[in-house]
């Protein structure tokens, strides 16, 4: 419906909303005030800062005789009109001029009475607008699709241009390929000339490596456990935070086909203890993800988030979406949550408090991750054990030793300016978070951890778990390869401790998973099946060392898992630690899958399906004492 002729006579939308009791005068005052300070339009604030739901808004306008055009995506577009627009400016309004027709600028608007934007049309094009009322989400979708190309290209290639040495676009460097093939050739030649001695050396080498890498993990866990009661930020400190002094905080929510979880996600975010106007929540939706977009449309309660549609561009990865979202982020700090995340309510305040305490070179704070559905099945229990020791013991251990911390997938909080300075996430890396942690470290920045937890949904499906884990392991391989392109340079930049930590933590992890079945095979062939060939190939002492390393390695890993239950009082899980060798076999399957993918499709993002848990995502605050 064209409304242009009656614009001046039309009552502002806000009056209609007040009339329908959807907002109050006090709300209107707040919105106007916020609008003046932020430059955001009335409708943007009303719809994205939790004043009114989209359903109610459309209902209100429909009752007043307005008709929404739900086919705006099919409207013709004039590039000359679009050339005069800046996407960042446009996104402050829910409006988009698309073409000139009959000497009028055909403009899509979610608020047909937005005087400021109408004036903008007059000023920019010197013509009157012809307004088509459209849903804000459709306008956002169209705006990003039509105007977002340059941003998305930057999101993909920015790091590659500014810091090509750290981009995962090239998986194996020439030097690495030469090294790998030369090693293989050398091994084959050695096997050819002296099969037995070479096999012995290989056997002892890999089994000792296995044990050493697990000993390193135990060492880290022990070190981390020493500070398990340390609270980087206390509740008392959080209580004394003055809301007015808080900066704008961006929360990025990259989602893809998470229609089932949208409602839960938004509810979870509503409970965050942070002033509403200082939250800048970006829901990053892929252009082709109509499922999620429709789920957002259908929300029947006011929500605090702003939708950003990420235009199509390969690779279709989470880091690319996050990078794109950065261009529209307003915060001083930024964090990322996954669709199913339930962060501790005071997390943002704790992070800010800690940033204030830490020296300037701390640019990222990682929160602990854990699971709300831990007792659902075997997998979720094992996953909980793993995450508990990882985030409660290993990362604090790394932190204590001042070794680069591989960031977790979500709940890592950044100083936005520093994140941009680092070149943000690498869209070609499938564990962009781990990579970013290392990149930050190598540039002299530090990462710390805070005593706050985000609860996620543990993967409860075997195949889904394998998919997710294969991506993680592939990402670790990618990250290792990138940073080891020039080992000497890396050593000089991060020092011996960082270098060893990086090799044992990032490099050794996939390797241990890859060699685990080999050691297990030797164990089975020797001890269980008692094959004669294995005794003929390896002397007893070699088999002894190999099996000793395997058994002790497994025992220590079980022990590290057992330690995990203590901080969070998950005592009922302690026996499940014994199943760690089986869990490791699953890791090995994923590692081989990851290795295969690293070679054939390195940037392929194995999507993890969320929302499979039948457990409601409610969390009781754990006590953090033994």
């Amino acid at each position, binding site marked *: 419906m064209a409304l242009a002729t009656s614009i001046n006579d039309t009552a502002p939308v806000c009056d209609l909303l007040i009339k329908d009791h959807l907002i109050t005068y006090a709300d209107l005052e707040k919105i106007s005030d916020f609008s003046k300070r932020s430059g955001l339009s009335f409708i943007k604030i009303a719809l994205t800062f939790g004043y009114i739901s989209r359903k109610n808004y459309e209902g209100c306008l429909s009752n007043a005789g307005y008709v929404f055009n739900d086919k705006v995506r099919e409207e013709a577009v004039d590039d000359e009109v679009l050339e005069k627009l800046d996407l960042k400016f446009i996104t402050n309004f829910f409006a988009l001029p698309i073409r000139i027709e009959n000497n009028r600028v055909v403009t899509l608007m979610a608020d047909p009475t937005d005087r400021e934007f109408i004036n903008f049309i007059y000023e920019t094009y010197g013509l009157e607008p012809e307004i088509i009322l459209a849903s804000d989400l459709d306008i956002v979708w169209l705006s990003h699709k039509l105007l977002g190309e340059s941003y998305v290209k930057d999101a993909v290639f920015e790091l590659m241009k500014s810091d090509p040495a750290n981009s995962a676009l090239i998986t194996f460097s020439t030097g690495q390929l030469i090294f790998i093939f030369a090693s293989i050739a050398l091994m084959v030649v050695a096997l050819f000339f002296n099969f037995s001695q070479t096999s012995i050396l290989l056997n002892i080498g890999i089994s000792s490596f296995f044990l050493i890498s697990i000993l390193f993990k135990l060492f880290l*866990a*022990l070190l981390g*456990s*020493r500070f398990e009661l340390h609270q980087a930020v206390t509740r008392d400190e959080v209580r004394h935070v003055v809301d007015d002094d808080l900066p704008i905080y961006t929360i990025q929510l990259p989602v893809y086909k998470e229609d089932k979880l949208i409602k839960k996600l938004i509810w979870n975010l509503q409970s965050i203890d942070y002033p509403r106007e200082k939250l800048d929540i970006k829901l990053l939706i892929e252009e082709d993800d109509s499922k999620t977009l429709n789920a957002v449309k259908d929300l029947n309660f006011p929500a605090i988030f702003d939708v950003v549609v990420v235009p199509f561009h390969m690779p279709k990865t989470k880091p690319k979406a996050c990078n794109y979202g950065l261009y529209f982020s307003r915060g001083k700090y930024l964090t990322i949550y996954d669709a199913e995340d339930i962060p501790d309510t005071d997390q943002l305040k704790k992070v800010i408090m800690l940033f204030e305490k830490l020296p300037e070179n701390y640019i990222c704070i990682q929160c602990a991750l854990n699971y709300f559905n831990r007792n659902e099945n075997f997998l979720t229990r094992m996953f909980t054990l793993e995450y508990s020791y990882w985030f409660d013991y290993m990362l604090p251990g790394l932190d204590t030793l001042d070794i680069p911390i591989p960031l977790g997938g979500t709940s890592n909080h950044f100083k936005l300016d520093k994140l941009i300075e680092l070149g943000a996430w690498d869209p070609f890396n499938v564990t962009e978070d781990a990579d970013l942690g290392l990149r930050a470290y190598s540039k002299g920045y530090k990462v710390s951890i805070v005593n706050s937890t985000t609860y996620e949904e543990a993967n409860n499906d075997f195949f889904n778990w394998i998919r997710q884990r294969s991506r993680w392991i592939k990402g670790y391989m990618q990250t290792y390869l990138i940073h080891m392109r020039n080992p000497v340079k890396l050593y000089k930049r991060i020092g011996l401790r960082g270098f060893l930590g990086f090799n044992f933590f990032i490099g050794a992890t996939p390797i241990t998973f890859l060699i685990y079945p080999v050691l297990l095979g030797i164990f089975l062939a020797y001890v269980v099946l008692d094959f004669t060939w294995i005794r003929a190939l390896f002397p007893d002492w070699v088999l*002894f060392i190999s099996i000793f390393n395997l058994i*002790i390695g497994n025992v220590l890993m079980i022990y590290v898992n*057992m330690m995990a239950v203590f901080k969070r*009082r998950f005592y*009922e899980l302690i026996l499940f630690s014994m199943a760690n060798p089986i869990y490791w076999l699953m890791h090995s399957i994923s590692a081989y899958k990851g290795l295969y993918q690293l070679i054939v499709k390195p940037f392929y993002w194995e999507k993890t399906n969320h929302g499979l848990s039948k457990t409601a995502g409610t969390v009781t605050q754990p006590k953090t004492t033994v």
Partner: protein
Amino acid sequence: MRRRVLYLFFSSVTLAVFYLVLGINLQHLGYYNHESLFYIEKARIVFEGTGLRLKTIGLTSPMIPFYGVLPFAQLNYLIAPVIASALGTAALFFIISLGVIKTTKDNFLILILLLLFIFHPGFIYMGCSGKGIYATMIFFFLFFYNIFRFYISNTTFHISIASILLVILLFCDYKFIWMTLFFIPLIISIAIQSLNLAEKQSIFRLFLSFNNPSLRRKLMNKTFAMYVIIFILPLIAILCYKLLNQAHANDFNYFSDSPYATWNVLVDKFEKTVSPSVTNYSIPEVSFLTSVRVLVYCPLILLGAYFFRSNTQHFLTLLIPFALVEFLKIHEENSSFLPMQYYLMFIVLAYLALVFRSQVIARRKVYKVIIVLLVIVQVFTGYFFLRDSMIQSENSFVTTFQKTNDTNEPTTFDEYKQMADFINHLPRKSSILIDDVNAYPILAYVKSLKNITLPYQDAFLSAIENPSTYVSYVLLAGDQNSVGGYTQLNFKYKLTMETRNSLTLEKVYESDNWTMYRIRVNGHEFDESLIR
């Protein structure tokens, strides 16, 4: 702090030198013991032996004291155990002192500790004897230190470290595995204390938690989890070690039951031959009296118990070693007497209690006076315990100490030395068959193992069956030898060989318990050039 650590370090070095000088002097006076000789003989096999030594390296038990000797074996085999025990005991002093300076600025406790280490006969015995007691004491102290730290810090770190230390302690002295039994009440107590209940009294907390299904489940889960976190590593370590024994020796308990693997098997025969009780009016260590003996030996533990009287966990912790020694008395039927380390551990534990109450001690003079008095009493009781010990190596430590260089009374070890001396003077190419199951004290004194065929070698079994092909001499245990039954190479062997293999075993040297024979085939001496 750094300065104090430096002082401590130099005190420890001085202490090590003190023990070393005393220990070497004692050796000159003829003091030896079977434990150190056993380590020496095994170390010689490791460094001088030819053939498959993996079993000796991996299965010699107790492992840690044995490994403690190895680094010094190349310097001098006979002194190596003394060096190890001297350094180990000095290290124990250093470790305990570090614990003290972390808790208080008052040097009183350090001084007392130094006096104990210098004057207490038990500690001197630990430092000079060449035995592995120092290793047991170090890890015993560290284990309990971390348990007490856990009570204070409440972190998984200390409990996990305690668990790892317990693993090492077990490889110092396997008998400490029984301690796991007596931790059950303690862990239940810890679990009850940690429950979130308004009730303060332990007994009522227990009552409440047992009568509420949710609390009961929590209590059980936590108790089990704590028990597992402390004991899973030691238990699995022992299980793995047993599997290793099974794989390499076809016996799960080879490390604890075989005289080839440990000196403990024969030590009763060697050292505890003094018959107790009625005939010589000695106080027998009957069960209940063991605890009383401990209190007499270490009255300081009473002060420790007094300090911990208001804390159930701390108090129960102090009781655990009492339960252990009582249990060992019941369980170890063949063992009439508890060796010195089971008494010494109470001094270490009592001292640990003082460390954790050092602030209180620093403030009250009366405690300092009591401690000084108790330490003086302990030094005397320590002397009397050692002097009157029914264990030969302990008893002879005191008697050797009292000897002067002029007195030249023969010791039991002279026989071994003389036999070794004879072996050393055999013609250079002479090869000898010896079973080190009981002859290890002799082998500890020989100059070289080069021409000696021992059980760890593949040729040993063949040499036993057909000695004339492999060796020119054979050492047999005499019929008076109390441990002659443990080897095939005893007096019966001579008869068998002479009947079956038409050999003649010609006696070339004889002592009370050992006889060296030269092998003659059809009246001819063995031709050395035929040795395989």
